[in-house]
């Protein structure tokens, strides 16, 4: 036995299947005999081996129905694996569903006090944490109003504040970050990062490849309940998106619906391509994208990201001010104008889209999203095919090679 084992989560050959047995008596009988494998089954997870060390941040990506949520539920211990072993050391805070157990008729304060047991907190422990939970949720006088009168944002704030108040060793998050308004999303992210810095292990499942890559150094790609890839998150992202590209091309879908929103933290005023109505000449003209946005002057200077898309929606290239280390200066009211230049743009003839985002200073939380906000056209001389002109060199090789 090793003396110090810092593995906090260990799954050995874990499988989870759901019985499709229609007869309740047969199900009851099988459960009583602890024989849960016979009869027709739907397999949600197959042969999953996973070892997570203390302090690791692991992202889980995959399509809907790939088994991401099932995996998290098995790790949390809500679901019992059909096969294999699960070992977890330490206190888990599961952000699988925020505010489960909240009763709409009770006030926020009552709900926090009375749902403490669901987090394993005794009344005395919850009473000690109550002021901090209320302060973090920051919903003002609403704390003494019935929860049914809350906006969904307020509900999530209170529930998140409560769920993360327990100083967990392992934090399991299922898409919870995508909720709440900009300012709170930022605050909740800060709290998660603080917990991570204190050594908490993080398990994070999201549709957003980008968020997983930004927060986690390691990622798991699940498909049909099978681990397709487990390794560095940037590599997982490549594997997953190329596979997605292949399957989606087969499905031949239309352009995805553009996501456009602003938050209290930041909002785009204008995004434009200079001379965008005139076609640009490939490898001759500069592509200049001008961005004008407003932001809350109280928050740290935001960053800006731009992606270029082909007419079928595929992402061709991207740039982020935090990646290139460009610091955006704002005026006193929080307004900023920046531009991004692609010198002698190497794209080939065609129609292209620009999407732009304002993000937090770490480039993780999206404050404002303006997808497919403008288009531009490229023309070229000559019959070169493709979407991009990569630098080329021709050489004469000898015949006897």
């Amino acid at each position, binding site marked *: 036995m090793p003396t110090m084992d810092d593995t906090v989560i260990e799954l050995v050959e874990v499988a989870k299947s759901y019985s499709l047995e229609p007869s309740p008596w047969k199900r*009851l009988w099988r459960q009583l005999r602890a024989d849960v494998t016979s009869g027709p089954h739907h397999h949600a997870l197959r042969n999953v081996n996973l070892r997570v060390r203390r302090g690791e941040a692991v992202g889980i990506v995959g399509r809907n129905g790939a088994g991401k949520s099932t995996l998290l539920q098995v790790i949390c211990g809500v679901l019992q694996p059909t096969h294999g072993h699960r070992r977890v050391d330490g206190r888990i805070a599961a952000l699988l*569903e925020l505010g*489960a157990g909240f009763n709409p*008729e009770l006030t926020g304060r009552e709900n926090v006090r009375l749902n403490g*047991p669901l987090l394993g907190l005794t009344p005395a422990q919850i009473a000690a944490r109550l002021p901090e939970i209320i302060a973090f949720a920051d919903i003002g006088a609403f704390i003494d109003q019935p929860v049914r009168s809350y906006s969904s944002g307020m509900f999530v704030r209170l529930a998140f504040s409560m769920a993360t108040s327990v100083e967990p060793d392992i934090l399991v998050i299922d898409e919870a970050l995508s909720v709440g308004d900009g300012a709170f999303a930022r605050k909740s992210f800060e709290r998660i990062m603080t917990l991570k810095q204190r050594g908490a292990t993080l398990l994070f499942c999201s549709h957003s490849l980008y968020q997983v890559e930004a927060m986690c150094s390691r990622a798991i790609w699940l498909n049909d309940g099978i681990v397709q890839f487990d390794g560095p998150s940037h590599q997982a992202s490549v594997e997953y998106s190329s596979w997605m590209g292949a399957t989606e091309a087969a499905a031949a879908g239309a352009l995805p619906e553009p996501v456009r929103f602003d938050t209290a933290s930041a909002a785009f005023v204008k995004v434009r391509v200079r001379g965008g109505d005139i076609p640009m000449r490939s490898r001759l003209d500069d592509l200049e994208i001008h961005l004008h946005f407003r932001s809350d002057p109280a928050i740290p200077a935001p960053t800006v990201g731009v992606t270029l898309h082909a007419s079928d929606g595929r992402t061709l290239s991207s740039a982020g001010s935090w990646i290139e280390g460009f610091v955006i200066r704002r005026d006193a009211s929080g307004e900023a104008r920046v531009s991004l230049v692609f010198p002698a743009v190497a794209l080939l003839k065609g129609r292209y889209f620009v999407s732009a985002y304002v993000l937090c200073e770490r480039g993780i939380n999206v404050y404002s999203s303006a997808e497919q906000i403008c288009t531009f056209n490229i023309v070229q001389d000559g019959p070169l095919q493709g979407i991009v002109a990569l630098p080329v060199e021709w050489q004469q090789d000898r015949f006897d090679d």
Partner: protein
Amino acid sequence: MGSLIDQLSLAWPLAKRDVIARYRGSAVGLVWALITPLAVVAVYSLVFEGVFKARWAGGAVDQGQGSYALRLFAGLIVFGSISEVAGRATRLIQDNANLVKRVVFPLELLCVALVMQVALHGLLQAAVLAAWLLVVGDGPRWSWLWLPLAAAWTVALQVVLALVLASVGCYVRDLQHVVPVLMSGLLFLSPVFYPAAAAPSALRVLLNFNPMSMPIELARAAWFGDAIDWKQLAVPALGMLLAMYFALRLFKRLRFGFADLV
């Protein structure tokens, strides 16, 4: 033992949550916990005493005004609380589906919290009965000291029923429909309207097998100072302990399937 106390302190807020939520927004609130059983007592005693001219059979001598109603009330408090636990337990897991599927906590707490809520109502009703007896000058008596024993027995039976019906009810949904019917039948097959001693021998066999008979009889004996046959209590008490053990084992075995079913 320490874990039992922990469990109780964890279940209490959950019970409180449900009680507060149940009466929030109603004008008289918790008073409903009294109005309902008192109305039932009024109707039953009107019918049985007023129409059928029923008298409380057996040894009790002081058959004054309202005595039938009081004895009926004493039995109904016990029966009503047991049947409420049984009825609600069959839906307990389904009603808390989001907790079962999404939150990691000992699910037995749901059963304990259910019993606590109902016990709170029972306690209120018992207080009203005590006040009523004091007003008509029929108490206090020394035998009231046995009331905690009757209460403990009732709670033990409630816990057993809650564990069994909640876990099996999650698999076999028919229980939701069967249990209420069964309970309204059992009201007449339990010694609520009559003492067990006054029952004809055919019925007596049934009463012996009805686990609710003991706590009902025990509670009434404690309230009204009837003789308690201690020798008769030993076997059912042992049975309760065994039932508790098996109910817990059953629940712990079946709970692993809950999240798949709700």
